[in-house]
């Protein structure tokens, strides 16, 4: 059980692949992704059940070891968030080792 940082990112589902690549590149130790989420933000409503697939979100959860890693990850994804919208939250957590 060691202190860690939990990053939570919401982006359009179309961008899931690109986001995964950028997390890998930024050295994230791993990630979990939940697809087919909906939501509302400044860019309006996104329906999770849109068959055209153009307005669905996905949620990434990334557990990072420390602030340095968080910085790197956030830097890597900032341009993407800026261009396409979304949400990024960082919070404290404890990582249960096994």
């Amino acid at each position, binding site marked *: 059980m060691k202190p860690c940082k939990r990053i939570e990112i919401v982006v359009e589902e179309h961008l899931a692949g*690109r986001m995964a690549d950028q997390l890998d590149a930024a050295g994230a130790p791993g990630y979990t992704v939940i697809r087919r989420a909906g939501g509302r933000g400044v860019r309006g409503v996104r329906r999770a*059940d*849109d*068959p055209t697939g153009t307005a669905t979100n996905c949620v990434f959860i990334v557990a990072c070891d420390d602030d340095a890693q968080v910085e790197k990850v956030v830097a890597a994804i900032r341009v993407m968030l800026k261009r396409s919208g979304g949400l990024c939250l960082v919070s404290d957590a404890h990582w249960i080792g096994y």
Partner: protein
Amino acid sequence: MDSLFLANLGSPPLLFFFLGVAAAFVRSDLEIPTQVAKFLSVYLLFAIGFKGGVALAESPLDASVGLGLLAAVGLAAAVPVYVFFLLRRRLSAADAAAISATYGSVSAVTFVTAAAYLDSVGVAWGGHLVAAMALMESPAIIIGILLYRVFGQRESGERAEALDWGELLRESCLNGSVFLIVGSMLIGWITGSRGMEQIAPFVVEPFIGILCLFLLDMGLVAAHRIIDLSKAREGVIPWPTLVGFALVLPLVNAMLGGSVALLLGMSEGDALLLTVLAASASYIAVPAAMRLALPEANPSLYLPMALAVTFPFNLLVGIPAYHLALRSIIGN
């Protein structure tokens, strides 16, 4: 003459489209589960592709077919250019580029519905039109991005994400629907009537029934978009103007497509399908590509234009109207 309109509006697929629209407007919780809806569209592409391929295997591939395909690609590449410069005056370069790509590309469901309409009124059409549809999906995406890169880039001073051309080409030329149509067509062409025998009970017989359920869903989706629109804050450009564009563009593009078809001496059915392809706008492949390559463009402009206005307009009014016009010219 207007019996064509009645034949169209009174057909089960169109009536189910209306049912979906109605369900959304009265806020019924009717829905086709998303994954199934996606599968129904996979089915439609698979079936129309296979049928087109089998038809191709049975008719000789001649110069006129090649010319037709060339014309189709030409249309798909030319439309975005004029649309871009037309819209540039009122919209940002990104939005103009995205809308021009949307209208240069095609809607497979509109095509499938037009083909079902032709079958129901007993007019023949050639399998190579399926190839034309596949060929017309991608060029507009590339042209749209190029237009933005050339004429729009300076606008936004900021450092942009580098454009990954490889990814863009893959997105545009190898997206799922293009790949499936082309692949199914190839397989239909290879296996011919022997293959058709094996899978006709799956691709031919239930086709109209499945189209009904798919259009029911499309009705729901299109109406949801209209509702979302009416709730949206007023944007940079008033909504009536956008709706106006979304009605005028298919008419102009239909005229372009129809003229090309008539110049090439296409048959009635083929001419209608090319016209419909030109008139239709993409609401799946292009928006997906635009979100990746041109996220600056506002999806709440191009998506509802294509999906909530142009798509129903073509389905309900466009198809029989274009048919009527072509018929009166060809003089059947």
